[in-house]
């Protein structure tokens, strides 16, 4: 199957449609909430929580004995939340830093989850098969009810986000001020954290534990490069996330032996790289171009200032001088001279140059501007 066939099939084939919709919704909701995680400097929280959810899945299975995905996700949510709040407890109550707390909870919870999973596997007559799909994710196992669950959660999340938009926004940028305004910062904080955990848990089934953090971060990091407005960033991140989901699914479906999760993550990574390079205001390419342009302008100004210095000593400012005179000055080249001619600051006649009137005035102004700024 190639890509065009895939897009023709999406609308008719049940499985493909379900998976595509699922990954698109997942990408949108993680992108949306990921923006908050990135701006709150909680980028690696996603990594920690997705690992911390594992024991919850195992315990939920041990208690209920059923493989119902909603129950398992509930377990994941509870243990993810416990992990998150323990991380906070460690950072608040001890002198361990947040990265240590994250790594600690991540590895300990995950290890404990592995202990439980292997314990379950050794149980007689357990139909535990499929529990480990949460480790690496299997988008192919998505069914319509999963997609409905995702859509519902996304809807609720969107509603809450709009309802508390002002609060979330102000908490993001000035937590102390929010408190003095009388908002219950603790409540807002717990609300947003719970939704982030919820989004991560939803993604476990599709892209798995290890890659979940990228789903949370990459669309948001890409969106950040294009705008300074929170609402635009959230919207863009949702769009990037959804597109990563759709394209990732399309590419992995069009080839054999390509797992969906990693492909989605790589597509999201392409969005990030593209944004890092080509974003007009922050991107590396335009930054480099601006840098080069600034340096050129500076060189031009330096040449002009030197010419002005020479011309000043003559009564007639347009008196021609030999280019040789400029030789002991490093900034000038044939090219920069040509540029000055284009700007009508200088006229060239063979090996002689002379300042025009505009050139002289500009240079004089340049000079006075510099000196007044120095004062």
């Amino acid at each position, binding site marked *: 199957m190639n890509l065009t066939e895939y897009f023709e099939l999406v609308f008719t084939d049940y499985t493909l449609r379900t998976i595509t919709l699922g990954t698109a919704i997942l990408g949108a909701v993680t992108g949306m909430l990921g923006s908050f995680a*990135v701006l709150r*400097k*909680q*980028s*690696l929280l*996603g*990594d920690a929580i997705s*690992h911390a959810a594992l024991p919850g899945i195992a315990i939920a299975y041990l208690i209920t004995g059923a493989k119902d995905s909603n129950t398992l996700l509930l377990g994941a949510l509870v243990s993810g939340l416990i992990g998150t709040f323990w991380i906070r*407890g460690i950072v608040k*109550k*001890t*002198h*361990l*830093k947040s*990265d*240590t*707390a*994250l*790594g*600690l909870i*991540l*590895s*300990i*919870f*995950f*290890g*404990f*989850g*592995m*202990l*439980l*999973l*292997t*314990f379950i596997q*050794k149980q007689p007559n357990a139909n535990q098969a499929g529990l480990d799909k949460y*480790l*690496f994710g299997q988008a192919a196992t998505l069914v319509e009810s999963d997609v409905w669950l995702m859509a519902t959660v996304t809807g609720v999340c969107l509603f809450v986000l709009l309802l508390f938009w002002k609060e979330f926004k102000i908490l993001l940028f000035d937590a102390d001020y929010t408190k003095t305004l009388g908002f219950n910062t603790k409540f807002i904080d717990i609300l947003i954290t719970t939704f982030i955990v919820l989004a991560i848990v939803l993604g476990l089934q599709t892209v798995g534990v*290890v*890659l979940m*953090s*990228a789903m*949370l*971060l*990459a669309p948001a*990091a890409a969106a*950040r*490069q294009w705008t300074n407005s929170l609402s635009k960033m959230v919207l863009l991140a949702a769009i990037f996330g959804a597109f990563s989901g759709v394209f990732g699914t399309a590419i992995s479906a069009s080839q054999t*032996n*390509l*797992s969906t*999760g*990693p*492909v989605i*993550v*790589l597509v999201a*990574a392409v969005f*990030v790289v593209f944004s*890092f390079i080509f974003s007009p205001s*922050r991107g*590396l390419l335009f930054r480099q171009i601006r840098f080069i342009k600034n340096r050129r302008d500076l060189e031009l100004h330096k040449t002009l200032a030197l010419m002005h210095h020479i011309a000043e000593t003559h009564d007639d400012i347009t008196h021609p001088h030999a280019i040789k005179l400029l030789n002991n000055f490093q900034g000038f080249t044939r090219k920069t001279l040509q540029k000055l001619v284009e700007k009508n600051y200088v006229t060239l006649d063979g090996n002689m140059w002379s300042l025009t009137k505009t050139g002289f005035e500009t240079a004089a102004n340049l000079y006075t501007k510099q000196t007044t700024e120095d004062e």
Partner: protein
Amino acid sequence: MNSAQIEIQLIASLVAIACAIPGTFLVLRKMAMISDAISHSILPGIVVGFFITQDLNSPLLIILAAFTGVVTVVLVEYIQKTDLVKEDTAIGLVFPALFSIGVILIAKNANDVHLDVDAVLVGELALAPFDRLVISGVDIGPKSLWIIGTILLITITLLIAFFKELKVSTFDKGLAASLGFSPAIIHYGLMTVSSITTVGAFDAVGAILVVALMIAPAATAYLLTTNLKKMLALAAFFGVFSAISGYWLAHLLDASIAGSITTMLGLLFLAVYLFAPNKGVIAVMYREKQQRIEVSLLTFLLHLKNHSEAEERHVNHLREHINWQKIRAKTVLELALKNNMIAVNNNVVSLTDKGDTFTSKAIDYIITNEDAQIEDMKDDFFLFRG
């Protein structure tokens, strides 16, 4: 205990020590999450090494994997330097991408060989004794034991040789640079050692246990001491303790050894987190509560000192006046009585001489903030210990 069991415990203990040493510095340098990133992103290095050599035991795999680990660090630093995103975001972007490449490479090209992602991530310590190193027909022990033993030996040698440099550059980068140690060389040296340790260890125990063994013992030790040498020793001890007790837990439950060791590390951390003498949660809470009571006591004594009229000092009036709840007022009153700072006469409270001097001293301290005055009070009151 049979010889395989002894070998497993020996390998686990050596891995624990080899991880604890770089782990301590990672925790102190606030770079703990780098170990998580490295442990995932070495996957493509291993896969490419496997494609080249077609041999899972080739040393080229370790070299390429360790190289990928260093590449991860460099990439993270490069992204960070562009100022487009924060450091933690940079980490979170780099390692899932590299890991994804690794997973896809395996899925596309190596589906039918023994190289699956499960084994890489989770590891199987129980199988380590079966992979023997045989030199000219003589069996000289499990291969993992030799690999991790060599790495540990190199780590310890480097630690002893560069202890001073590591210490200074960890706690004061500027000082290290001005003394002529290049912080960059030490940084990349540490990263290379972490990377090699991760690769060498995770062949035996899996990526997640490596992360746990790097961070958890060091974090636990950090709650108990602020001395670098003690922290290193404690971290190594906690690692070995968890390795051995974890092995027996796994034996008992018939579960994954790596998972059990991690669980033991978690329990150990939980115990220290709660009960550590100075920095544990309970100690901190007790100290905070004690300080709150002592602040109340001081307020109470100041009130007494300011008022000579009897009705202001009546027990019942105090409760209304300072607006404390009944219980707190009673605790404070009892504490003051027990310390002989007040005397109660017909339900009217007055300061004793001792209470009077104490209050004056405390006021002096609050106004001047000079420590010398209150040295003798530090023994009795948390409040003045800072």
